[in-house]
Structures are given as C-alpha cells and as structure tokens.
C-alpha cells in the first residue's frame, strides 16, 4: 500500500508519532546534522523525509499555538513543508534550518488569518476546551485541566505578536537569537519582550511572587 506522502515514501516503514508529544523515532534515529540532510534533500527530494520528521513537531506546535485549531494548524504545517521543499534551493544555511522553517510557518499563519480575517471560526473549539477534554478521563487531573484551560484562555487573550513570541519560544523551541532574527529584534530585546509577555500571563493566571 503506497503512502500519500511523497517525500516520505522511501521511509514509509518508519513509525509515525505514537503519542501526541515527543519527537518521531526517525528523527531521533537520524543523527546527521540539518546541513547534511538539506544537502541530501537538494540532491534527492525523497531525502527530505528526515528533515520533515525532525521538525514537524516544532512547526506544528508553533502553528497550533498561533492558530489554536488542529485542522488549521495541520494545514499550515503542510503548507510550510510544501513551500520549504520547493524553496529548499534558496536555503542559504546562514541560520538554523528549524528557524528557517518557522519563518515560513509564520507566513503561513499570517496567510491563514488574512484568508480568514472576515470569517469567524464558529466551529473551532478553543484549546481550553480541548485541554479539558484530554484530561477528562483522568480522575486526578481535574485541577490540571482547570489550570490548562486558564492558561489556554490567557494565551488566547494575548496580542497576536505576543503569542507569536511565546509560540516560537515554547512551541518551536527557538533560541532568543533565532526569534530575534525572525522578528527583527536584538536578542536582548527579544528576552525583554518575552519577559513582559510572561509577566502578563503571570498576572492573568494570578501567580504571586513568594519569598525565596
């Protein structure tokens, strides 16, 4: 049975994500650096598979954090990798490949909002509800579910640019310098901006400073 994934086809025996979180096994197994994998993918597009498996989690988490809808996040992630595959010859290697991908993903997220700017996503379920659902089967997770819901609500209330910073840092795992490159900030300014966002979230979550 052939797979629909064109560049993963030769690797179709590799396991997919067994769980919602955690890096794919194929990404863990392939220890070659991104530069090597990019060079290989330039020579043979089917060799893009390890790069995809290595970075799909980060890209998806970023998109999910920004779009707060699994369908939209999946679509943006697919668009990101499709564009990346086409644009791969233009990857200059002057920064990490993962950050380059997130740069594309940011445009895809922007595209999504541009296309949907006048459409209210009535059918979309907020992440807060979904977080609650995920923990519904765990009797001990009631408080965690409430906390997760509060955090999701606080994130949803952030300005888009602030949420962008948070998603790049905590969703995609980018460094301050990488975020700064993508947003046109200095590293120090990126840290400062993120501190402010965390302060706002802490206030929204009513987290108090206690004595150390």
């Amino acid at each position: 049975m052939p797979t629909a994934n064109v560049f993963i086809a030769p690797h179709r025996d590799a396991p997919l994500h067994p769980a919602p979180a955690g890096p794919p096994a194929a990404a863990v197994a392939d220890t070659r650096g991104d530069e090597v994998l990019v060079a290989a993918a330039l020579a043979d597009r089917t060799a893009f598979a390890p790069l995809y498996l290595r970075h799909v989690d980060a890209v998806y988490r970023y998109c999910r954090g920004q779009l707060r809808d699994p369908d939209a996040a999946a679509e943006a992630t697919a668009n990101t990798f499709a564009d990346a595959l086409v644009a791969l010859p233009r990857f200059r290697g002057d920064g990490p490949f993962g950050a380059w991908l997130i740069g594309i993903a940011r445009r895809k997220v922007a595209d999504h909002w541009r296309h949907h700017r006048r459409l209210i996503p009535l059918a979309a379920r907020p992440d807060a509800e979904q977080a609650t659902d995920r923990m519904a089967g765990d009797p001990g997770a009631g408080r965690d579910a409430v906390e997760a819901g509060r955090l999701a609500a606080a994130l949803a209330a952030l300005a888009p640019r602030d949420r962008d910073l948070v998603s790049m840092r905590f969703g995609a795992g980018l460094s301050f310098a990488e975020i700064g490159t993508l947003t046109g900030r200095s590293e120090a300014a990126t840290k400062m901006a993120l501190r402010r966002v965390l302060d706002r979230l802490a206030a929204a979550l009513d987290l108090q400073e206690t004595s150390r």
Partner: protein
Amino acid sequence: MNEFDDPLADTQPRAGVARRLEAHYAALGPTADEVARIQAQIAQRLDAGAGDARSLPRLAPRTRGTHTRALGLAWAAAVTATLGVGLAVAALGGLSGASWFGKVRAMLPWQPVPVRAAFVPFVGFRDLSHPERFGVLDQPVTLAMTDGKRASVVQAWHEADRLIVAVALEGADGQPFDVAELLSGYEMVLRWTNRDGKSEERRGGLDGYQGGDPPIRQGEAGSVPPDNLIHFAFDDMPRRITEATLNIDLSTQRNGVLRLRRPDGRIRYTPGTEVTFTLKLARLDAERAQRDFHSPRPLPALRDTHQGITVQLLDVTDGPIRTVVRVLVTYDPDNVARGEQPAGEVSNGYSISSDGVSRSHAIGPLLDRVIGSSPWGPAEPELGMYWAPAAWLMDVDRGRRLAAHEEPPCWEPAQTVWMRAAKFTATDGLRVPFQDWEERSFGDDHLWSFGRHDGIYPLIDGTIINYCFDPIVGSGTRVLRIPELRSHGRGFRNDWSLRWTDQRVP
C-alpha cells in the same frame, strides 16, 4: 540549572508561567492522525501545484465540513493511488527521484491548459521596512484583456521578503469574475533586471484575497465580488530593487482538476503574447515622506453630534503611503449623566468611500491613532503620523518622545508601524480608567487583527483620531463612516457619516 538562571524564569511567577507553557506546548504536538493528514496535504499540494507549491490555488475551499473533507480524502486517495503506480514504475525502472516524479506527473489525470497571457502593470513598492526604498503607489492601472476581462493592480507591498501584489479582477462586459476561473490557477510572473544586468524572474501564486463584502467564502461558487482584491505573492524577493524594470504578465496556469469540472469542457484560453511595460521605481527619502505627512489639507468644518458626542472632521493629509483623516471627538457635559465618566470608545468599523476613487479605499482603512492628553503633556498631533517610515519613527520617537516614558515600548524597525493608546486624563479632572501602554503593529500579519479583537481605545473630550487609508487618488465626494463609536458605559452605538467633497485636481 537554577531556574533563575533562565532569563525567562528570573522571578517565581515567570518561572511558573514558563513551566506551564512548556507543558502546554508539549501537549500540543501532533497526533499520529494529524501527522498522516499533514503528509497527505503536502502530497496534495506538491502535485496540485505541478512542482511549485506556491502556485496552488489557496483560495480553494478549505471548509472543514463533511463534504469538503470527503472530497479531500477522495482526492488524496486518488493521488495516493496514482503515486502508488508511480512508485511501482520507479521500482521497476530504477528511476532517480527526479525522473520518478516526472513519470508520476505524466500519469496524473490532467494536462497543461494552453495559456493566453495578459499583463498587468506594476505600480510601485510600498516597502515599509525599508523606508528609503518604498515607491509611490500611483493610480491603479487597469488593463483590458482581449476577451473582455479586466485586471487592475491596485496595491503592491513587501511583507518581509515577500512581495504582495493585489489585483482586482473583472469578468467580461463588467460581469463579476468567475470564482471557478480564478481557482483554475492564475499565476503572475514578475521579471526584472538586476544591477548586474541579468534578468531575474519570480513566479507568484495566488496568495489570498483582501476581502470585500461579502468576501470569497470557503467553498463558494459564483463570482468574485468586485471589491475583493486577489493577492499574488512572490517569495524571497530581493529588497534592493531600485530603478529596476519590471515586467509582469498575468496568465492562467494549468490546473486540471478544475478544468475537468467546467461544464462546457472548453478551454478558455489560447496562447497569446506577453506585453511588456516598464516602470521606474520612485525613490523617496524620509524628508519627503515627512514633508508630505506634515502638509494637512484643510477641509470645511464638518461635524455631527449624537447623544453628547460630537465628531468633527479636521483635515486630510496625503502621504505617499497613507492618507490620514483626522477626526476630533468632543463631549457635551450636559449630555453626560452625573457619575458617568466622560469617556468613550472607538472600536472596529470604519470605512471610506468616494465617487470614482479606487475601490481599495473601501477595503483597507485603518484607525491609526488616538491622540489625547498624556502623562507628558498635551496632545501632540504632529507626532501622530505613524505611517511615516520606520527609520524616521525610530529617530524621532525613540530618541525624544519615548525616552520620557518610564518604560518605552520596544521599537523594532521590522515592524514598522505601531499603535499606542496612551494614558489619558479627562480634562474635567475625572480620571479615566487607567489604560496601560498598548502596542499595536500594523505590519505584516498583525494587520488583520486590529479592531476585531483588541481595537478598543479610550476616548476623552478632545481626543483626535487618525484614520489611515491607502492613498486617496483623484477627487470626489467622500464619506467617512464610523459605525461604532460608543460612549463609555452606555452601550449605545452611533453611526456617523462625514461627507465632504475633495476639491483636488485629480
């Protein structure tokens, strides 16, 4: 590592938030089902785009409904089956990856549609992140195609390293443009000569639309509303194009899926010739931009009063990248009930229209700034022209004005334009509820969000609001509509229409 070594966890609240965020995002990872769906979508995109993912018709239905999903799954299954045959061919023939794809594509159930090229002139850059190189947006240029259709380039601007060209399309004989035809895959080719004299080329695919009313909806059949601008995006554009020659042709691109769906089965386009035009990009400096922004055009006094709130049109300032309309909001104390704060809010909902002026003006108006009393002194309207080039803002505002504030917001040249609602103090001594600094970016992807989610700004007596529009060209009667100006705590809405006739020579 001590948690306080982390720059984001140098306080306990921040550390707590950071831990929660890490757990939150870790839980957002894709499930196996989602990964499989993403893979299918990538395959679909690559094949539907005939090797160029950007050429995909992104305006295609994206509805999450059952029917669309079923169609998508059916399509993915068809691609899968086709690729499966391709894999078999590859396995049997020992083909390389590239030739494998070539073979597979040759087996896909469509063939190129012959193309008749039309062209659309390009009118200039609006590169806000490189203020020294933004170009003048001239009047929209409309070109009639030989089959009666018309295409107009209305706007063009840079978003990061992308060039976006917004085009208005009309069908033959003034009829609305057919959605199915649009989705059949238009592609714009942009060519220019670089500094070395070499020719370069980028292909831009459909990138979305700039909604009118109604917008192009997901899965919608019918026609493209005339006030929808279709965006074409060119990725990875060099920023240093000046004095360049640009050639653009707008041509249909093959896409067999929709062609097969056409009821008449006819091929609508025949090969044609590409028409070339040349435009020298204007180079504007910050001085000119500043001068333009500081030359307001006085208008006859216009005012309208509803329920104690008066809206008065002050003047119009024409800039190279924005036209700013200033509106003064005042309150009549007699109409403010005792105990209520004489404050209001302005939120989403504003438009400008005029006779014979580009339809883009009805699409992209933005509330630019609310100016009122501030902690450092009286209102300074002359500093409110926030659509000036970023570098100018940096030099003027950061050096002088923002330094006066205890915690100046981060200014970033890449973001170009900011919106701030400052702390306001009511003139009669009442304190308006404290409003912290708010930072709004109008650049890039944040433009969409303004107003819909967080566009509530405090107003006090004497507040001046700047409304920004794309440059207004020509003359005519204009109507500024402010449908949602509300008094604080009263919950009513007013709908102002300030109408004036512009006497400029077009």
